[in-house]
């Protein structure tokens, strides 16, 4: 903590604070451990919230805190802004919501680092090399995350164009920027009191956050967000090193691990390397497939589709990003229940990167109270498709594109997909001829067994529900 003259009596208070931190660390870990099963997840997060509460109380008790005015003010303002962000934001906006939260978190960490540096200089508290290294590291990763996550959430909220914004030599620029910043960090370790270098580092890192994320396509944002999450974790851990706070180190390391693992899992599910996601400017069309598609997209009338669904014995629903856009999760469940009431079996096929963030479809469908036992993962549902009477693709595109299996020249070649094309019949619900996030054609839509149901997924589904009811 920012140092002050220690007195023998203050050691007691210090000890109390440390005990609350230890308890908080344990509660955070138990909280994440709760997330390893749906049953224990909620209880787990309550542990984590308790940990947060303890940590705040333990800190307020710390003797170096002497005035409470600004603190109370800050907490109140934070609560007033945070409350609606927690209760109002729709589930469909989760990706940009998470990105925005990252910005806030990184902002807090970075400001703490700057304040610590400034105060030490101001009060002539010596800055040792390990401390300046930690502080420099912290503001670097923190500032980069502030702007990076802001750009990401702008792209996801469609305030910024989702397509990659590229310019010649941008990778070179980024590498040069990174090199420069590392040099500055090295300089600071040698001359810890070089203020200007420190603040310039903050500025450059803010710039780098923008130039790193702008060239990445909107669909890749979840990977970027997970990675920025791990950066902000590292920044928090570095803060912990600088201000001697083990709780920050632990929480930062947990965050760092989580973000890193998620970003790796996501890139793997898209069959791309993390480097390709970050520097590939995916979606520019550079990797356009050379295969041409044969056949035509054949439409089907809602009544005919409803008839087929009503008599199907085995139906698999394949949700994708379009389901989130249309907010059609409730209607899907209605349709499923109608089919089940008529004796059919309905399962859901959940692709790991369907939607725009990991587990996106799970959250949406859980919101509509679809029991998660009928949500099947890729490996479990794929062998079943040949026996499926009707597969209903709702706003999914890339994750059902057979080119991933067959077309070596396709940019998504090798990505594991849902084998919808092996079902006996396929209905595809989409608005028109729009492409998926990868921006490529999809042979599934031209297949002889596929029928298109054009229109917004929600209204199409409502039509189907009405029609099935009257069968």
């Amino acid at each position, binding site marked *: 903590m920012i140092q002050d003259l220690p007195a023998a009596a203050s050691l007691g208070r210090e000890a109390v604070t440390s005990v609350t931190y230890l308890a908080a660390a344990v509660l955070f870990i138990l909280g994440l451990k709760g997330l390893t099963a749906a049953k224990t*997840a909620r209880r787990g997060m309550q542990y984590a919230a308790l940990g947060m509460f303890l940590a705040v109380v333990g800190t307020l008790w710390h003797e170096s*805190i002497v005035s409470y005015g600004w603190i109370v003010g800050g907490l109140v*303002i934070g609560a007033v802004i945070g409350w609606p962000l927690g209760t109002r934001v729709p589930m469909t906006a989760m990706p940009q919501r998470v990105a925005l939260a990252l910005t806030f978190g990184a902002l807090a960490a970075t400001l703490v680092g700057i304040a610590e540096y400034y105060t030490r200089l101001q009060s002539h508290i010596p800055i040792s090399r390990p401390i300046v290294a930690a502080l420099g590291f912290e503001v670097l990763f923190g500032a980069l995350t502030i702007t990076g996550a802001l750009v990401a959430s702008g792209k996801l909220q469609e305030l910024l164009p989702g397509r990659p914004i590229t310019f010649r030599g941008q990778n070179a620029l980024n590498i040069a920027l990174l090199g420069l910043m590392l040099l500055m960090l090295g300089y600071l370790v040698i001359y810890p009191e070089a203020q200007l270098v420190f603040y310039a580092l903050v500025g450059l890192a803010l710039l780098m956050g923008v130039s790193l994320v702008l060239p990445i396509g909107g669909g890749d944002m979840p990977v970027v967000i997970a990675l920025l999450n791990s950066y902000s*974790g590292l920044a928090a851990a570095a803060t912990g*090193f600088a201000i001697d706070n083990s709780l920050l180190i632990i929480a930062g390391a947990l965050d*760092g691990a989580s973000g890193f693992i998620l970003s790796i899992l996501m890139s793997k599910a898209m069959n791309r390397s993390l480097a390709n996601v970050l520097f590939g400017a995916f979606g520019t069309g550079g990797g356009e497939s050379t295969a041409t598609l044969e056949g035509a997209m054949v439409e089907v009338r809602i009544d005919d589709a409803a008839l087929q669904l009503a008599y199907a014995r085995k139906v698999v629903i394949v949700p994708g990003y379009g389901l989130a856009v249309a907010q059609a999760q409730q209607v899907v469940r209605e349709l499923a229940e109608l089919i*089940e009431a008529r004796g059919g079996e309905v399962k859901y096929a959940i692709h790991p990167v369907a939607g725009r963030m990991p587990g996106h479809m799970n959250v949406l469908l859980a919101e509509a109270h679809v029991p998660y036992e009928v949500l099947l993962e890729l490996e479990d549902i794929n062998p079943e498709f040949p026996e499926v009477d009707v597969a209903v693709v709702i706003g999914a595109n890339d994750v059902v594109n057979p080119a991933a299996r067959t077309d070596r020249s396709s940019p998504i070649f090798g990505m594991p997909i849902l084998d919808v094309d092996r079902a006996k019949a396929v209905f595809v619900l989409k608005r028109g001829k729009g492409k998926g996030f990868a921006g490529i054609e999809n042979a599934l839509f031209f297949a002889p067994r596929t029928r298109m149901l054009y229109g917004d997924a929600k209204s199409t589904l409502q039509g189907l529900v009405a029609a099935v009811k009257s069968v």
Partner: protein
Amino acid sequence: MDTIADLASAEKLALANQFLKLFVFVLAGFVGFLVITRVPPLLHTPLMSATNAISAISIVGALLAAGGDHNRVSTTLGFIAVISASINIFGGFIITDRMLKMFKIEGRK
């Protein structure tokens, strides 16, 4: 404590302190890795928002900066940091809970 803290051992203690923090970091990284790899894909979105909420722990540093009466810059920066961190605390835990509430085991069949 009844050790006689002498000038010389203070440097040793400081070095030991740095290394202990490194041990804490590495061990926490292992814990994170071991726990997170067991989180099912089903809960990946709640996981992201949960780690968001937990990362608001930098509120601890923010409180010390804002309430420490060091100087005006520190107070101001600390104040803003308290705001942003507490946005994440309130927003983060609430939205995570909202999501997890949905994952009830329901006997639909």
